């Protein structure tokens, strides 16, 4: 039979071990030490995600991958994406967004837009500290703020970016091969047609 109060004393011993241990465990092997946040920054894991951004290659105007297909706009669960297709001087729609807004005060960072994008153009950022006083002026991100280079993407998500780059490269090689094959086929067809034409040409009568 335990002495009355012995359970409390046992518990206090555990508390004491933890209290003293927090001073001795310098390597933080067992204990989690509070991060002194603004001075100490957390090292984010690679997969960490917060809000979406738009990837471009090289030049932010020409290299934009987004074709304004509006799939992400349609699939976004809280409907925080707004896209308007661009038009050329003649009013003909071109495959580029004129307006691409994401309201990050509504966005819940679920990354469904990333998964549904067929052009690998929208990806998750890992920014934080985006609080602001005005919701509409600062928390609705426009195309200019959303566009970030592929180099940046490689920095924040190296593994994922490498996979994406490999996929794009494979698609490019496949497309080039297909184009080359098509060109060869066309050339062969043309040569055959020319030969046939030469063959069927009536012999000049002597």
């Amino acid at each position, binding site marked *: 039979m335990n002495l009355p109060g012995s*359970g409390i004393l046992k*518990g206090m011993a555990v508390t004491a071990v*933890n209290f003293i241990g927090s001073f001795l465990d310098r390597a933080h092997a067992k*204990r989690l030490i509070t991060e002194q946040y603004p001075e100490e920054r957390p090292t984010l894991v690679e*997969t960490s995600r917060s809000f979406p951004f738009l990837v471009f290659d090289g030049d932010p105007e020409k290299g934009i991958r987004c074709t304004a297909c509006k799939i992400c706009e349609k699939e976004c669960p809280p409907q925080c994406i707004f896209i308007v297709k661009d038009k050329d001087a003649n009013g003909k729609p071109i495959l580029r967004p004129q307006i691409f807004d994401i309201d990050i005060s509504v966005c*819940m*960072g679920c990354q469904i837009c990333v998964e549904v994008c067929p052009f690998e153009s929208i990806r998750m950022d890992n920014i934080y500290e985006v609080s602001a006083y005005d919701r509409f002026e600062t928390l609705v991100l426009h195309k200019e703020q959303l566009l970030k280079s592929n180099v940046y993407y490689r920095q924040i998500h190296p593994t994922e970016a490498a996979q994406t780059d490999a996929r794009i490269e494979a698609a490019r090689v496949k497309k080039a091969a297909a184009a080359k094959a098509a060109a060869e086929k066309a050339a062969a067809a043309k040569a055959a047609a020319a030969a046939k034409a030469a063959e069927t040409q009536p012999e000049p009568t002597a």
Partner: protein
Amino acid sequence: MSFHPHNSSLNEVNGAGALDVSLGPQHPSTHGVFRMNVRMEGETITKLQPVFGYLHRNHEKIAEANSWLGSMPYTDRLDYICPITNNWAYARAVEQLAGIEVPERAEYIRVIVGELTRLQNHTAFLGFILGDMGAWGSALMYAFREREKILDLFEWLTGARMMVNYMRFGGVRCDLPVGWLEKARAYVETYPAFLDEMEQLLTGNEILLARLQGVGVLSGERAINGGLSGPVLRASGVDYDIRKVDAYGVYPRLSFRIPRGTVGDCYDRFMIRLLEARESIQILQQAFAQIPAGPTLNPAVKQRGFKPPVGEAYGRIEGPKGELGFHLISQGGDKPYRYHVRPPSLINLTLLEEMCLGTKIADVMVILGSIDIVLGEVDR
């Protein structure tokens, strides 16, 4: 304790002064925005009326307007302490509806993350119920220290600590990162030591025993009649665990026991979490040993523009808090016709008044804490 002058009245009931008190909805002991209208005679509860709906977010109606995949991130926000099991229940319901096969590796990953979720939920519970008894500090901090390590694993795997959005129809979104399994295994190995420490700290404590033993007794029969599930039901001595009853996923291949209580009081409900955590460790160790290589997502399933056949399905899993089920009706379109959640927290609350009647006002907090509710799930 909030006191509403217009709500309360000093009535003469049987010669004694009855006092109506509105507890909550901002009271820290009510685990969120839960409110109880309590009538007391002295300090004894004579009537308790739960009021909820303060966190209602239209989850089910939003799901009817969203694509099937689009509801997946919203399920994270039901029971935000354990989002992965919510994902799992929804994915399982859709898989039943459309008859989707899940690859073996994905099933094992689901078991691993699901049991880790159970571990961290029960760990957080230990901290919370101590908080309800007035022991803010050590116990909660120790519990959250361990929970944080599991959440770090989740962040590494899914990109977010809590809003994971991890499961997909026919599998999981991404494979385990390189080194994740080793880290998780090493972490789970340290876990029994933490549970020992917690038991040393708490289970022999005389104050804790006095506050928990014999408080809020619920018989097994009443628990069944009330539709209760999960640890609350098993604490009342009923052997009912959907992991065994339905034997879904790869659970039949894993050997584990179902702990049961004998008295059905708060102490049983407290201890059953500790015991279940130990069983979860057993499950995890077997799953770590058995997990095969292979695909993690059924490639035949189109996630975007997913259209299940016309029909109706009810998919359920044993969540950390009880039976979590999704009832889905499809008309063949890209949106559910009806989407209903059966949240364990809400159903487990139904017998709150019965457990509280005749107890003291200070015990109400402990009884509510022992049910382990999350208001995101109660109100949806």
